[in-house]
């Protein structure tokens, strides 16, 4: 049983560019949440997708957007990248719109230069 998978594992982008990160949830899960973990910090909640809609959102600007597909996989898009967007981006999946325990992927390390 594959767990939560994220791609790519590492990414280097230039300031001002746009990036798309991808997440496939654990088998049987229908809810995906995204987190940003800056170096030396705890993860911070970006948003959650359930039934292909954004259900909850943390304190992140509109440059951060997402999408959930019918197969429950999800994308995180970040526009107009800033140096401060450099971080580990984590995807977590669960079942039932957030009622179950969250399982995390290994993350995508984004570096903005």
């Amino acid at each position, binding site marked *: 049983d594959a767990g939560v998978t994220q791609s790519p594992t590492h990414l280097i982008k230039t300031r001002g560019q746009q990036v798309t990160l991808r997440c496939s949830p654990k088998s049987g899960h229908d809810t995906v*949440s995204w987190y940003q973990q800056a170096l030396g910090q705890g993860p911070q909640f970006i948003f959650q997708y359930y039934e292909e809609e954004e259900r909850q959102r943390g304190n992140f600007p509109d440059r951060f957007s997402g999408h959930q597909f019918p197969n429950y996989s999800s994308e995180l898009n970040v526009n107009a990248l800033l140096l401060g967007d450099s971080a580990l981006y984590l995807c977590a999946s669960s079942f039932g719109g957030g009622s179950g325990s969250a399982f*995390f992927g290994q993350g995508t390390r984004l570096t903005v230069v």
Partner: protein
Amino acid sequence: AQSVTQLDSHVSVSEGTPVLLRCNYSSSYSPSLFWYVQHPNKGLQLLLKYTSAATLVKGINGFEAEFKKSETSFHLTKPSAHMSDAAEYFCVVSDKRTGANNLFFGTGTRLTIIP
């Protein structure tokens, strides 16, 4: 609003001695509390969770935590540390109002095990 405070950024213990990682929480509603562990270059792994059942929660790898409402604490303990326990540990809170997946993480405690 909900938040967690991890009282120690770094804890060092000798192999075979007890581990105590401290966490205090703040929540406006009935909280769910979690401890996650993050090994280098690996994803976050759930150690244990409290969701208003028994106040003493047993997790994986011999860890346990006790929910103390009067002290707003949820400290993580293990009787005997093993070298493989060296990692970053996060105390996490969510509440029923915002949903179990809207998790608020502490800043983490780095656990070092001395041989």
